[in-house]
C-alpha cells in the first residue's frame, strides 16, 4: 500500500467567493425546471378562473361587488402562492438529491450557500412572475368592472330620476375607492412577501427533513401558527395563564414561527382602505428580516449536511 502524503503538505488556494452570476444560473435553472413541471398551465387556468369570477357575481351594489371580487381573488391568490411556495420548495432539494444532480452541482466549485440561495430565488422568481401576470389581469378586470358598474349605476339613478351631480359624484368616489388603485398592487406585494417568508421556512425544513411530506406538513402547520402569532404572544406574556413549561414551549413556538399576520392587508384593501407607504415599508422590512434569519439558519444546516 502506498503511503499517503501528510496533511501538512496542503496547498493554500484562493477561496471560492459568492458569485451572483452562479446564483442567477441556479435560480434560472430552478425556475425553468418548475415551469416544466406544468406549473404555468395551472397558473394560466387560475387566471382564467379569476377572470370568470370577476364577471360572475350577482349585482348587489357597485361597492359590494368590487369589494367581493377583490376579497375572493386576492384570497385565492394568497392560498395559491403559499401552496406553490411550500410544495415546490419541498420537492426541489430531495429531487436533486435523488437524481444525483446535487452531486454534479456541488462537486463543481459551487459554495453550498450559492446553491440554496439559487434554489430559493428560482422559486421566488416564479411566484413573482405569476403574481405580476395575475396582478395585471386583476387590474384589467377591476378597471373594466369599475367602468361598467359606474355606468349602470348612473343609468339606474337616471331611471329613478335621482342623478343629481352630487349623487353622481358620490357614486364616482365610492366606485373609484373600491376600483383600481395602488392598494391592489400593495395587496399583491404583501401576498408575495408572505409567500416568500413561508418559502424560506420550507427551504430550511427541507434541509433538515429527509421526507418531502414531512416538510410540507410541518411548513403548513407553521403557516397556520404564524397567522395566530398575536394570540401566542398574548398567552406567553400573561403571567396567570398556563404552567411555566407550557409558556416556555409556547415562547419557543413564537420564536420559531414567523408572524404572518403582519402581511394581512387583503381585508383592508378589499374594504377600500388606503394602505400607507409606511405600512408597505414596514412589511417589506419585516419580510427581509425573517428571510435573512431563516436563510442564515438554512445555510448553517445545509453546509453541514451529509449528502
Amino acid at each position, binding site marked *: 500500500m502506498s503511503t499517503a*502524503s501528510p496533511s501538512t503538505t496542503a496547498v493554500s488556494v484562493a477561496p471560492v467567493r459568492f458569485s451572483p452570476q452562479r446564483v442567477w444560473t441556479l435560480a434560472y435553472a430552478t425556475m*425553468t425546471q418548475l415551469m416544466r413541471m406544468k406549473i404555468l398551465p395551472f397558473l394560466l387556468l387560475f387566471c382564467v378562473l379569476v377572470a370568470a369570477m370577476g364577471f360572475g357575481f350577482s349585482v348587489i351594489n357597485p361597492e359590494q361587488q368590487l369589494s367581493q371580487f377583490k376579497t375572493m381573488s386576492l384570497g385565492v391568490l394568497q392560498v395559491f402562492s403559499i401552496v406553490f411556495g411550500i410544495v415546490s420548495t419541498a420537492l426541489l432539494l430531495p429531487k436533486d438529491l435523488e437524481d*444525483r444532480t446535487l452531486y454534479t452541482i456541488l*462537486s*463543481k*466549485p459551487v459554495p453550498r450557500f450559492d446553491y440554496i440561495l439559487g434554489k430559493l430565488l428560482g422559486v421566488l422568481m416564479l411566484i413573482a412572475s405569476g403574481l405580476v401576470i395575475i396582478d395585471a389581469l386583476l387590474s384589467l378586470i377591476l378597471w373594466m368592472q369599475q367602468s361598467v358598474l359606474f355606468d349602470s349605476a348612473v343609468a339606474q339613478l337616471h331611471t329613478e330620476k335621482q342623478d343629481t351631480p352630487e349623487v353622481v359624484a358620490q357614486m364616482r368616489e365610492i366606485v373609484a375607492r373600491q376600483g383600481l388603485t395602488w392598494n391592489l398592487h400593495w395587496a399583491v406585494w404583501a401576498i408575495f412577501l408572505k409567500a416568500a417568508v413561508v418559502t424560506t421556512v420550507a427551504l430550511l425544513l427541507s434541509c433538515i427533513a429527509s421526507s418531502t411530506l414531512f416538510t410540507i406538513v410541518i411548513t403548513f402547520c407553521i403557516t397556520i401558527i404564524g397567522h395566530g402569532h398575536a394570540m401566542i404572544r398574548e398567552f406567553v406574556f400573561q403571567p396567570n395563564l398556563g404552567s411555566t413549561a407550557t409558556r416556555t414551549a409556547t415562547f419557543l413556538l413564537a420564536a420559531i414561527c414567523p408572524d404572518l399576520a403582519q402581511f394581512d392587508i387583503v381585508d383592508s384593501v378589499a374594504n377600500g382602505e388606503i394602505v400607507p407607504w409606511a405600512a408597505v415599508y414596514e412589511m417589506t422590512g419585516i419580510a427581509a428580516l425573517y428571510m435573512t434569519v431563516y436563510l442564515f439558519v438554512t445555510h448553517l444546516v445545509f453546509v453541514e449536511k451529509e449528502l
Partner: protein
Amino acid sequence: MSATPAVSVNHLTKVFKGSLGKGAFRAVHDVSLTVQAGEVYGLIGPNGSGKSTTMKVILGLLSPTSGDTSIFGVPSTEVASRHSVGFLPENPYFYKHLNGRETLHFYGKLCGMSGAKLKSRAEEMLALTGLEDAATRRVGGYSKGMLQRLGLAQALIHEPQLLVLDEPTAGVDPAGSRIIRDLIIEFRTRGITVLVTSHLLEQMQEVCDRVGIMAHGRMVREGRLNELIAVENQTEMVLENASPDLLAKIDALVKAEGGGTRLLRSGHPRTTLERLFLEATNAPKEP
C-alpha cells in the same frame, strides 16, 4: 508531472450516526491511498465496501469522521479544491428540460465560464463524447449510455486535472461501455488523472495503472495492477501457427528439464464474450 499527488487520502474513517435507535455505522475504516497525477487508479470492491463513501469524502460531499483528504494538495473540505476535479456519479440524471448543449452550458456557468470560451468548450466536449448529433435533444430522451457520456462531458467542461468516475459503465450496453473505456484511455493520454470505481473487473484491468481493493470499509490490497495480478511462478507463451510437431518438441523439452518445471496447459486461447459480442454487433448489415 506534478510532484503533488492528485488525490491524497490519509487514515480516513467515516462513521455514519445512527438515527432513532439504530447504531452508528462505520463505512470506511482507516483508509489511506494516493493517486499520482496522470495515472488511472481503480477503486474496486463489493457493494457496501466503502468505495462511494471514500469518493464522496474526496469530493467534499461528506465530511470525514477522522483523517483527511486532499485534491492536488488542497483539502477536500475547501470548495476551491473542486476547481481541479470533475465528477461523474453512478447513473447520473440531469435536468430533463435542458438539452445536451444547455446542460453543458449550465455546468460551465457554475464553474465561472461564459461567452465564447464556454461555447467552444461545450462543442469540444460534445464532439469528444460523440454527442454532437444529440446536442439539441432534450436530456429526458437520452439513453443510459448517452447520459453517461453527457456526464463525462459535464465533468470535463471546466478542464479539470482529475476525473472521479463512480461506476461509469453501470447499466450501459457493451458498445457504449467500450466507448467510455476508450475515453478513459484517451483522458490518460491527455494527462488527466482518473479515479474510477467499477464492479466490472475485466474493464478495470484494461484501463487502470494501479488499483486499490476495498472490503468492509478497509483497503485490503493496493498496488500497480501488473504486479498485483502477475502469477510469479508461471510463464505464459502464446504461439501463432505452431505445428503439432513443434508443440510436441516443447512438451518434450519441458519434461526433459525435470525439477519443478511442468507444462500446465496448452490449447487455443479464447476471445472474450464481450469481444465476440462487439465483433458480431458491429458487422455491417447484409442487404
